[in-house]
């Protein structure tokens, strides 16, 4: 897709170009928003707000990186602001680091599930773990970057991530064992 022409047309206010840009990214970006929130309603709220920011700030895109990555960063930032400002998430958005020790696991579980089921599992994590896990494992933010975006120190981000990762791996192992049992039970 020729993003340059599409962006230029959007900046000129062409409604068909704006719709085309939205249609191109909407499904993938809704998946991003879904991973950070606890309901599809909230995910759609974030998506709507995110796209409004995309169009309002489109003139600032400097073609210095991939356009899809730029859109995605806006969505993630919008999701983070949503979590911070929404009372439903604030109480669970805890980044307390009670110890300097954090669990480490070398387990490498099978991932015998589709993308949606894995996303649902990630969304079961407490909001703080969910957020940091998404940011590091999926979006690729470093713990330094996560610390700056969430207002926590790098060490807290690392320990929260480790706990999230260990918990997720535990669930994946359990899910894998249950899947195997089901296979044994079936004739």
């Amino acid at each position, binding site marked *: 897709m020729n993003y340059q022409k599409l962006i230029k047309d959007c900046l000129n206010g062409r409604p068909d170009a704006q719709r085309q840009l939205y249609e191109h990214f909407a*499904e993938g970006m*809704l998946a991003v928003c879904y991973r950070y929130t606890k309901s599809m309603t909230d*995910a*759609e709220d974030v998506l*709507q707000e995110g*796209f*409004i920011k995309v169009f309002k700030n489109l003139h600032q895109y400097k073609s210095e990186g991939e356009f899809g990555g730029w859109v995605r960063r806006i969505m993630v930032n919008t999701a983070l602001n949503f979590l911070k400002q929404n009372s439903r998430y604030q109480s669970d958005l805890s980044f307390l680091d009670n110890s300097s020790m954090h669990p480490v696991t070398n387990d*490498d579980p099978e991932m015998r599930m589709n*993308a949606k089921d894995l996303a649902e599992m990630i969304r079961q994590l407490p909001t703080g773990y969910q957020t940091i896990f998404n940011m590091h494992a999926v979006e690729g933010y470093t713990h330094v970057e996560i610390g700056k975006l969430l207002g926590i120190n790098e060490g807290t981000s690392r320990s929260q991530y480790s706990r999230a990762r260990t918990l997720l791996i535990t669930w994946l192992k359990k899910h894998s064992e249950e899947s195997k049992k089901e296979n044994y039970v079936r004739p």
Partner: protein
Amino acid sequence: MSDHDFEKRVKLKMDELRFRPSDAVWQGVERELRKDKPSRRGWLWIPAALLLLCAGGYYAVQQSGDRQHDAASATALNNSSADGSKNSGAVAENRSP
């Protein structure tokens, strides 16, 4: 396998994920975009007002010019009527033998 393999597999799976948003999402975005867009019709009043002003000014000037012309014409007519009556008297004198 290294720790990063787990993250890579998670990322690969999450990058596959897609959901179709409801129509209301685009409607909300579009509503906001149209709200910010300045109305083209709003700017028409400036040239329209200028045009009216010019037309009004031209009409006023024309009216003023017409009045002066009428006044001048009236004066000229009065003068020519006065001259005409003297002349007609002289002719009458000439006619009589």
